[in-house]
């Protein structure tokens, strides 16, 4: 099992989600985050007060997958999130010790993507 954590552009979220669903990766947690990844700093002015926005709004995805789904998921995130400009984000793949599906008590591989769709 792996936990895939990706930080992507807000405006690419829909594309990434469609790519993930196409790759049959269905379990995902989405969090709005802010961070700094070396992109251009936007300078803003409010009535003469000039500020540099050091933090950029991003979206973070957390996805628990079985080994077989690591590559398809990483591939899907890249496909959906890439624009080619600085600020496209990062993907981290992290080993996971234990996973529990709360509803059923299933653990580990049985508890993460893919869960067979009902019906």
């Amino acid at each position: 099992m792996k936990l895939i954590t990706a930080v992507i552009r807000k405006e690419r979220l829909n594309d990434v989600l469609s790519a993930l669903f196409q790759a049959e990766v269905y379990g995902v947690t989405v969090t709005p985050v802010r961070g700094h990844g070396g992109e251009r700093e936007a300078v803003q002015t409010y009535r003469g007060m000039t500020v540099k926005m050091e933090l950029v709004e991003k979206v973070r995805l957390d996805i628990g997958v079985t080994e077989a789904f690591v590559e398809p998921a990483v591939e899907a995130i890249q496909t959906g999130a890439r624009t080619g400009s600085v600020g496209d984000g990062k993907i981290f793949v992290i080993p996971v010790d234990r996973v529990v599906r709360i509803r059923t008590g299933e653990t580990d591989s049985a508890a993460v993507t893919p869960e067979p769709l009902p019906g």
Partner: protein
Amino acid sequence: MTRRSSRATHVPADASRRASPPAPSHAPRQAARRPPSSGARGAAPGRAPVRVTSSAFGILTLAALPAAGAQASAAGPGVTPAGDIAWMMVATALVLLMVVGLAFFYGGLVRRKNVLNSMMMSFVSLGVVGLTFAAVGYSLAFSGGSAVLGGLAHAGLRGLSPVGHGGVPGLLGFAFQATFAMITAALISGAVVERMRFGAYMLFIAIWSVVVYAPLAKWVWGGGFLQQLGALDFAGGTVVHINAGVAAAVLALMLGRRRDYGHKAMLPHQVPFTLLGAGLLWFGWFGFNAGSAQAANAGAVVAFVNTLLAPAATLVVWALLDLSRDGRATAVGLATGIVVGLVAITPAAGFVSPAGALAIGAVAALPSYALILWRARSRLDDSLDVFAAHGIGGISGALLTGLFASKAWGAPVDGGLAQLGVQALAVACAIGASAAGTFLIAKLIGVLTPLRAGAQHEAEGLDVALHGEEAYTDGEGALLVPVSRLEPGPAAVGGPARGEA
């Protein structure tokens, strides 16, 4: 009701006056819906010119004022009642507030990354069109000239007096008309939000307000050929709403769809703003419609009450249509219904009975509702449905005015098929002029500067990309920069990318 001869629309006696030949005499101006008394002066050779010493932008020599009053009283019915002047000043301020209401109406409907840009498109019209209308727009619409285009007699507000001689003082007449031009230009922005470059938009409304709006105002209100034909437009169904609606559709077509259109759901980010905006629009519309009576009189009362009733009917019908379609009435739907009802009653406000207003409001809901359903599934990205609300709502209102107009309630003629024909002709002229003018202006500007923001800016949102501001920010991660330390040149918009961290 006492009739004051220099403004006249809502009294049956006017019908006879309308028959007088449309020579550039004082007569057609009396039949005119909105004849600012001193505004008409420059073009009325039969009338002694008032000797007001004034320079551009109406800086009057005060000593000349008593003389002006004396001169006019010899030719006109006397001094304008204080109540009329007070009402027209309030009405002017109310119409100005509509632009603010529109900013909120549109601002709530766009995504949060574009809300400032969208609201600024309305606000900037207050400035840009205020200037163009003072410079030449008002004169081209309301001073002499031919039946197609006014002259330059009032360019730079020359010759507009703050003293009224029975009608609205010329200077106040300008202010009232200027707010109409502002709201009309601002209405167009709803079709091009989230993608048009701000500079190109400013240039567009500057030219459009002079080249398209002013001539149309001349045709319908300033003694032009549509007015001479007897087309009825009490407060701007043709000049303001059909005009803006058609311009919006044409500009949206020329600009192209937003890149996310049809791929992603682009939802309103702040529906309460939209409701607030619709409420402010309704509030301001009392000035728009009842102010168009040009006096605090019975005609204004009729227009005022009709402005209350018609949107009420539209709102209810809209909610029922929502309910019948999927069992739920929507907030955005109610806000839209209010606007459509206001648009529809605009040309009819001082010409129809309250019952007629209810009928117009109810009927007008149907075509606009249908078009909005169709548009959302079409390839036309008229983003905030300006054409459905203002174009179609305006056409419904203009045509229904031809049917429901009633001499007993202030129209110069009773409605019927003949009047319907005249109304249809005026609608066709407005559509043609607006479409052609908008197309040419946008083509011209497109040669000088790009109309659209780049793909990156569109994705990022125009607030940050074009204005360097965010609507909703808590300042987290914002470092204060002393101005002297700012990197010069393009870096100020965003420094060079650093190496990958």
